[in-house]
Structures are given as structure tokens and as C-alpha cells.
């Protein structure tokens, strides 16, 4: 019973993984919604096929048991059945492939008119974020590091090894362009709730577009083995609290001061870990 409860009866906190979780985290972007829907679509066919194949297997085992049927029939050819079992699987594959490709290519689509560009730069083992849409010089970008809160000092209510000290704050319902690149070894910036996983390859800028549909705190992790502390690079840093575009008006004014108080407060970054910089 306890196992069953663990498996099925837990209450899912929205955007963080939970023990024994089976499904995906709740979607916060159309892309993630698409991924979940595709998963369900495919599962329809999967269960259909599973039931059908099991039925054939069990039936064959039952009816052709050696005690019931000591002399096996030798059938080497059956044109009709061969045509059938070739055509039907291909039709099923087509039904799976069409939505799958549609989703794949829509994820690849570059948004024509992104509103904000955020640069996520992977380091061993933390992420640095740059907001520089409003820079007027090369040295002024709003840049901050985002470290995982170590296992021994999260505050009450924080998720263990999920929280970071400086969250990324982005507006909701806005097209965001995330540019991902590392400064040392390959990393990968992934946030399950947003349906984003973007490899960070040295010397290359990868772009991914997201549009977050609701406010929340989203957690992610590095998804490319990047060294000793890879597991603690909890950082694709959680996308922080997603506020309305009004938020920008504040950040923009604060943008001239790197590590602006406002941004930190908005991000709930009360720890003075930034001193490490």
C-alpha cells in the first residue's frame, strides 16, 4: 500500500521533481505541452500494440502447447498475412511520425521577433547569465553568477540541491531568446518544465527560444557530464520568478548597476553569495 501511495497518490509540486515521479513535470511552455501531448499520443499506440502482441503470444502458447498439439504444422508462406503485417505497422508508424516531426521542427523554429536575449554561459560548475540588451558600452552588461545552494545550507522550504543563489528572472508570456555557450567544457542547459535542453558547446553559440506561460519558479540541471561537480551544477539555474513585462521597467533602470538590488530582490536572492565573484 505504501508503495502504491508512493507511486500514484503523491501530490505533485508544480515545477520540481519529486520522489518516485512517473510522468513529466507540469508544462509551462507550449513546447513542453507539445512534448507531453506527443508522449500521450504515442502511448495510445503503444498500449494498443502491447495488448495485441500479448494476446497473440499468450494465445499461441496456449493453443500450440506441445501436449495439445504434438505435431507442429509447417507453414512457410502466407501472402495475405505478410502483406497485412507489413502495411499495418507502417500506417501506425506514420501516425506516430507525423506529430513527432511536427513537434521536432517547431522546436527548431527560430522565433522571428524575440523580446529579450539572455545569455547563459556555462562554467565549471556554475552558470553565468548576461542581460545585455540595454547596454550602451561593452563593459556594462548585467551579469551574475548562479551557484547551487550546497546540500548543507538550504533554508526551510527550499528544495535540496535544486535552489541556486541567484535566479534568472524573466518575464512571462514573452518570446525569449536564450543563447547558450560554455567558457570551458561542454555543458547543457536544461529546464524540464519548459521543455528546454540546449547543449553548450565551446566556441559556439546555441540559441533556443522559449515563451513561458505562467509565473513560477522552475528548476533545471546541467545535462552534459562536465566534470566532478556536474551533479551539483543545478544551475541552468532555475529560471526565476517569471513576472510581467513590468518587471523589465525596473531591471532596465537597474541594468546600469550590475548586480542591482532590485533584480536580486525580485529573484529572491537574499544570500550574499555574490561576493564570490
Amino acid at each position, binding site marked *: 500500500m505504501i508503495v502504491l501511495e508512493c507511486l500514484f497518490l503523491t501530490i505533485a509540486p508544480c515545477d520540481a521533481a519529486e520522489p518516485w515521479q512517473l510522468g513529466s513535470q507540469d508544462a509551462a511552455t507550449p513546447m513542453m505541452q507539445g512534448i507531453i501531448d506527443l508522449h500521450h499520443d504515442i502511448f495510445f499506440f503503444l498500449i494498443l500494440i502491447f495488448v495485441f502482441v500479448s494476446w497473440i503470444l499468450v494465445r499461441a502458447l496456449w493453443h500450440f502447447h506441445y501436449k495439445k498439439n504434438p505435431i507442429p504444422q509447417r507453414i512457410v508462406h502466407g501472402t495475405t498475412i505478410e502483406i497485412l503485417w507489413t502495411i499495418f505497422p507502417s500506417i501506425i508508424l506514420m501516425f506516430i511520425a507525423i506529430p513527432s516531426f511536427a513537434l521536432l521542427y517547431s522546436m527548431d523554429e527560430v522565433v522571428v*521577433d524575440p*523580446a529579450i*536575449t539572455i545569455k547563459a554561459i556555462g562554467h565549471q560548475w556554475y552558470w553565468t547569465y548576461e542581460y545585455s*540588451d540595454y*547596454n550602451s558600452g561593452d563593459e556594462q552588461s548585467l551579469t551574475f553568477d548562479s551557484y547551487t545552494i550546497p546540500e548543507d545550507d538550504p533554508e526551510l522550504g527550499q528544495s535540496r540541491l535544486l535552489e541556486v543563489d541567484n535566479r534568472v528572472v524573466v518575464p512571462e508570456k514573452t518570446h525569449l531568446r536564450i543563447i547558450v555557450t560554455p567558457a570551458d567544457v561542454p555543458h547543457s542547459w536544461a529546464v524540464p518544465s519548459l521543455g528546454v535542453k540546449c547543449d553548450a558547446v565551446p566556441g559556439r553559440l546555441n540559441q533556443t527560444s522559449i515563451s513561458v506561460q505562467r509565473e513560477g519558479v522552475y528548476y533545471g540541471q546541467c545535462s552534459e557530464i562536465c566534470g566532478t561537480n556536474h551533479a551539483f551544477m543545478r544551475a541552468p539555474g532555475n529560471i526565476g520568478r517569471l513576472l510581467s513585462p513590468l518587471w523589465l*521597467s525596473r531591471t532596465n533602470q537597474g541594468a546600469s548597476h550590475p548586480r542591482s538590488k532590485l533584480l536580486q530582490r525580485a529573484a529572491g536572492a537574499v544570500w550574499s553569495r555574490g561576493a564570490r565573484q
Partner: protein
Amino acid sequence: MSKVSVKQYLLEEKEKKSDVAVKSVEESEVKPSVDAPTEEIVQKTEETPTVVDSEVAPGATGGDSEVSDVAAGDSKETSPADANPAPSEESSDTAESENTNNQEAEETPEIKLETAPADFRFPTTNQTRHCFTRYIEYHRCIAAKGEGAPECDKFAKYYRSLCPGEWVDRWNEQRENGTFPGPL
């Protein structure tokens, strides 16, 4: 104009007020021009020869149709701000970036959600050359138009939006040392 409409869509929820405010400002701008159109036009041509230049510039720097589109879009955007009387003049003197200037000039909390637009030359996930190209475009523009030319500002904005700060620093250093690998 599509840019503007998208922006309005994005900000619809929270910023209806400021939109109304902007509209009223625009109306107030339009009215005097109806009253005394000739004066306005004369003022414009006197004040802002740079805007005219900016339309010409990309073609001169060997840009393609897209760039000129962007330039046209920009000039549309800037024109109402330039039509503003005093404050925009002052700010265009100090000219750092168009965006902040516009904000200062309007003195409203409205923010232009704006970043480097998608470029059809770089339609893929890999944006490395996008960043590099914008950096080069900026420096070629500066080389052609002179240091601090306002029509180059948008390229600066683009490459700052796209390139990691570290890369820009390194390239700046290389340019100083004369070892920059790109065609400047």
C-alpha cells in the same frame, strides 16, 4: 510596423495605460504638424540629417535587403521620437543608444522590449556567426561613418545582445593588437 504590433501584443495586459499615454503623446505630436506642417518639416530636416543617413548607410556598407528592412524599421521607430521637440535633441547629442534615449525623452515607464531581431542569414540553432557578423558589421560601419556615428548604434546593440561579454572583450583586445581575424 510588425515590430510595433508584436510589442503591443506582448505588453497588452499590463501596459494599456502607458499605451494610451503614448497615443495621446502621438496625437499631440500630430496636431501641431497639421497646424503648421511646413515648419515641422523644416525643423526635421535641420535637426535630423542623421536619420536620412541611416537609411542610406546599410546599402553603402554592402548590406542586403534584410538589413535595409531593419534600417527602415528603425527609422520609422525613431522618427516620432525625433519629431519630439527639445528632449530628443539633447539626448541625440549625447547619443549612446537609441533605446535609452527614447525612454529618457518620453519620460514614461514604458519599456521597449527590443533585442537583436532574428536574421534570415542565420536561421538555425547555431548563432555563432550571427554574433560575429554583427560585431564586424558594427566595426565596418564605424570605419565607414566615423567613431560614434549614430546609425551604427543598432549594430552595436545587436552584437552586445548576441555575443558573450568575454568574446567581445577578447575581440576588442585582438583589434587593438591588430590580430583580429575578421575582415574589418
